[in-house]
């Protein structure tokens, strides 16, 4: 009996799924990441000089970000008070996200009014801040162990770059272009690098709460899809593209598509399936006969 003496810590209220943030929130995290990532990828690959892809990114990127914002607005209880969200830039990452997003929405389309490398640099900076802010939003959601590891901002940034580059490659191939060796190599590098970051995030936890919470990201078909479909497959396809140039277009297009879908799926899993509230525990509790 006394073997069951101290039992620390004891779970009193088990983890339950959070109800507040649903598909619309996913749309914001996925859309915002993709939009900002697409612009970043386009700008960097174009060396911040004008070009067809950057032109596309300059309106499609902001459009995706805006779509994300509209989605969260639709989820909010009092959307008409939206502007108030800008007021707490000093403390709230959600304010910062909106500022960064707003700046990006202002600056990126500047491509058509006051183009220039300065404007592009600032837009890229805003895009970067936007995805980092999204990461920090999740990072500071203390109720959800799967969201608050310190690596989260990196996860979001990398995710944005992966999906962005994926989209860029896809549109370029669709537009008739052939991916350069450098592009294929960057795909390969990104997929493998980001894959490692992702695996690190879903496996490397010191506390049981986050470990259990991220289980949904480690196992199950969905998890497999993200790792295989979102990272491994693109990596292999990029390698194939490098190995046999005649297959490069098809391979890179497919890889790009998979990278976009994979990241959207990753965000959905993170917000919905892994969105478990922290279980309520007490430091220690005796199970055996207790003095009353």
């Amino acid at each position, binding site marked *: *009996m006394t073997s*069951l003496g101290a*039992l620390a810590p*004891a*779970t*009193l*209220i088990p983890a339950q799924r*959070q109800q*507040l*943030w649903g598909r619309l929130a996913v749309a914001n995290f996925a859309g915002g990441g993709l939009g900002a990532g697409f612009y970043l990828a386009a700008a960097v690959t174009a060396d911040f000089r004008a070009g067809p892809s950057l032109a596309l990114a300059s309106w499609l990127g902001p459009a995706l970000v805006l779509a994300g914002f509209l989605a*969260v607005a639709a*989820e*909010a*209880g*009092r*959307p008409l*008070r*939206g502007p*108030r*969200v*800008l*007021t*707490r830039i000093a*403390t*709230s*990452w*959600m*304010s910062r996200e*909106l500022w960064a997003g707003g700046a990006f929405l202002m600056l990126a389309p500047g491509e058509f009014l006051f183009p220039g490398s300065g404007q592009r640099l600032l837009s890229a900076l805003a895009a970067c801040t936007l995805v980092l802010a999204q990461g920090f*939003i999740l990072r*500071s*959601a*203390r*109720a*959800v162990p799967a*969201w608050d590891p310190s690596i989260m901002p990196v996860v979001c940034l990398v995710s944005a770059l992966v999906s962005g580059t994926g989209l860029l490659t896809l549109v370029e191939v669709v537009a008739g272009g052939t991916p350069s060796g450098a592009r294929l190599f960057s795909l390969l590098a990104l997929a493998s690098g980001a894959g490692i970051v992702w695996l690190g995030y879903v496996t490397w936890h010191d*506390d049981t709460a986050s470990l259990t919470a991220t289980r949904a990201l480690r196992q199950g078909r969905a998890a497999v899809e993200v790792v295989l479909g979102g990272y491994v497959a693109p990596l292999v396809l990029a390698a194939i593209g490098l190995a046999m140039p005649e297959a490069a277009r098809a391979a890179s297009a497919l890889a790009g598509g998979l990278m976009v879908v994979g990241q959207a799926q990753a965000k959905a899993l993170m917000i919905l399936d892994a969105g478990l*509230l*922290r279980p*309520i*525990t*007490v*430091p220690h*509790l*005796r*199970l*055996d006969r*207790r*003095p*009353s």
Partner: protein
Amino acid sequence: MRWGMVIDLRRCVGCQTCTIACKQEHGLPAGYQWRFVADCEVGEYPQVRRIFLPMQCMHCAEPPCVPVCPTGASRQRDDGIVWVAYDACVGCGYCAVACPYHARHLMHNTPGYFAVPTAPEAATAHPERRGVMTKCTFCQERVDAGRARGLRPGLDAEATPMCAVACIAEAILFGDLDDPTSRVARVARDGRAVPLLPECGTQPSVFYVVE
């Protein structure tokens, strides 16, 4: 001054009198509760413990729900009470996912118990809460009004949170944690009382006597 509570789990029987008293005091609509008492089971037959755990806002000294708020609607008073300015809240839900204690409730709508609202439902309706974040207020209205009349929260019922007043097991102590002579401060000091999830670094103002 820092308002706090000590809840004695050895006394609590899960009767939910505090739950319903809180609902009534604050005119909460059907399905919404700012506090509830969980019926917890630990262990395996026949070595089982059943524990009733009252849950409410912990009025954390380091409340993660406040800095995250993008509108500043989520606020903390100098006396530690954490509250929501309804007219400033957009209902984004961010503070709720920042609170480790399931203490914040976004009032999507304000349903009644029956097809038509009853007279008391109509009389206690709070339209300003529609679409915004709501939570335990530590009965700040009672505490403030009471103190204005020179009453002592925790000692005089009319200046004390309704759940503590209603509790039929005297399981809930309320008072000033900064006043070393208060009952809450004494129990909190003598080590028998522990906060929930200390690992979250929230420094709750609600403590529990587990055994």
